[in-house]
């Protein structure tokens, strides 16, 4: 059974969409990630136009990050003040991101730029997950307990405009979080991702936030960033496909919940190593698409219908 997507203007198999959403949802629930970094390239692989894949993915992340935030919020693990400061930067970043995106669409380079960005991103994520999980596995075998520093003091603590973030027990300048938010905003708008896997390490290492507050806070601000990106794409690139989003959201929310349950039952490192391999596989496919001479070196896009 196939369904016609009104904005992508093509019909796709409904079960393919549901299983794609389900699998990405499952992985995101299991690892506490948004899943946008897998959703967008997979949508492109099944033939969804790049601009629709990016814009619709942002819409889907709104749903999955709301699901995720609720749990953290109830446990008081969201630093709203930090989230708000990050959002100031993210607001301007996503406006710039959507502008860059529509310029790239206009000059016909969007596919290439998205491919290169995704290749870099997925290779980075995949390798770091692989290294991290294999280290944990190795440490476990050697029965080592690794002690971690609670606080990192670095240049971020020496800048002006210092503000006290009570929840995170921090007294730092607002400049680093605004810059981080700005960068995440650009990435979110151009790639259709929430950016948690960049945001979380940045919050821990640059800002020195306590690990317990990081996930909730990043999810909280991802809701708003992706919501803004959805609206910006709907109004400037007209690429948000509500029908596609609906099926992806439905299946990914269910998948995410199943993933959370599964995460409690399974050992983390082995699965994380598996995810790392999946991510690297997707990265390899993207790289091959860029490197192997295509069968058809010409591609056509409709600019305007003449009425």
């Amino acid at each position: 059974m196939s369904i016609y997507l009104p904005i992508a203007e093509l019909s796709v198999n409904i079960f393919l969409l549901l299983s794609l959403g389900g699998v990405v949802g499952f992985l995101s629930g299991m690892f506490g990630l948004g899943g946008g970094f897998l959703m967008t390239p997979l949508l492109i692989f099944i033939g969804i136009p790049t601009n629709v894949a990016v814009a619709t993915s942002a819409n889907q992340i709104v749903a999955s990050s709301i699901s995720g935030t609720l749990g953290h919020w109830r446990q008081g693990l969201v630093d709203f003040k930090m989230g708000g400061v990050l959002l100031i930067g993210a607001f301007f970043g996503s406006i710039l991101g959507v502008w860059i995106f529509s310029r790239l669409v206009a000059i016909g380079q969007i596919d290439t730029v998205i491919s290169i960005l995704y290749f870099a991103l997925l290779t980075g994520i995949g390798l770091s997950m692989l290294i991290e999980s294999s280290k944990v596995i190795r440490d476990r075998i050697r029965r080592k307990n690794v002690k971690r520093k609670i606080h990192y003091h670095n240049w971020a603590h020496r800048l002006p405009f210092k503000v006290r973030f009570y929840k995170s027990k921090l007294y730092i300048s607002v400049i680093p979080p605004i810059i981080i938010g700005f960068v995440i905003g650009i990435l979110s708008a151009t790639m259709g991702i929430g950016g948690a896997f960049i945001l979380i390490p940045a919050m821990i290492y640059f800002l020195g936030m306590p690990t317990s507050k990081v996930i909730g806070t990043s999810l909280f601000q991802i809701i708003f960033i992706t919501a803004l990106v959805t609206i910006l794409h709907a109004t400037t690139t007209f690429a948000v496909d509500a029908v596609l989003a609906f099926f992806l959201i439905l299946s990914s929310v269910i998948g995410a919940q199943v993933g959370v349950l599964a995460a409690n039952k399974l050992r983390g490192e082995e699965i994380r190593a598996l995810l790392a391999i999946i991510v690297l596989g997707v990265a390899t496919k993207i790289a091959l698409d860029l490197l192997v001479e295509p069968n058809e070196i010409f591609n056509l896009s409709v600019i305007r219908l003449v009425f």
Partner: protein
Amino acid sequence: MIKQLIILFYFLTGVMTPSISIALVIGSDQEEIYIDANFSGEELLVFGAFYSDPSQSRDSKSDILIEVVGPLEDVALRKKDSYFGFWLNSKSVTFRDVPGFYYLSSTSELADEFLINNQIGLLEKKKSEMIDWSLLTTDWGSIINEKEKEEFYNALIRTKQNDSLYKQVSDEIEIIDGNLFRSYIDIPNTVPVGEYTVNLHLIIDNEISQEYSYNFMVTRVGIEEAIYSFSKNYPFFYGLISLIIAIIIGWSGAEIFKRFRRI
């Protein structure tokens, strides 16, 4: 789904050239194709009858030609080139007023000369030096040399053919009883919406003897149309509604499963 609206028109040559009695009778089973949630392409049936003039010499050759021309659009054709091992889009050409769908079918293969003389066809029949570039009113960008222009032109046709949007055949018209003809034309699910023109020609000895044209529409209907036009007319509210749906499903999904887990 198919609206069985039979339009049966017929022409008697007598009306225009009273001396010869040849007729072309045309029917079609629909005047609209609807794109809805389940649309996966459709078959357009074109049928009719033609009567030869009894006084016509026996060895004269008659052919039926069916041409379907979709709505015009502007397209950008981009060529990939290798840069340091990466295949990236480089040169780009804009073609203006190109049919979004084009189908040309005849009972036997027609000579290029005939097609060119009668200005039928935009496919490979128009070869190299015969292409009148000015008709395409294109923006050639940085391309100046004729060979490259031709390469782009051929690529335009080829990419459209690969998407099943352009087709030229000479074996799809069925002739029944020597006077009746019938043809099923594949309308793929990627066709653009708009007005389509069907041109029919009865060709006798390489001369167009009879012509007939009619139009049909490809339109979006139902929820697909509602969503599409809403997204174009009220993009802000469309985005907002997409968000609200995401929020509702995201929120309720978490709530429902929380209850599950308690049990």
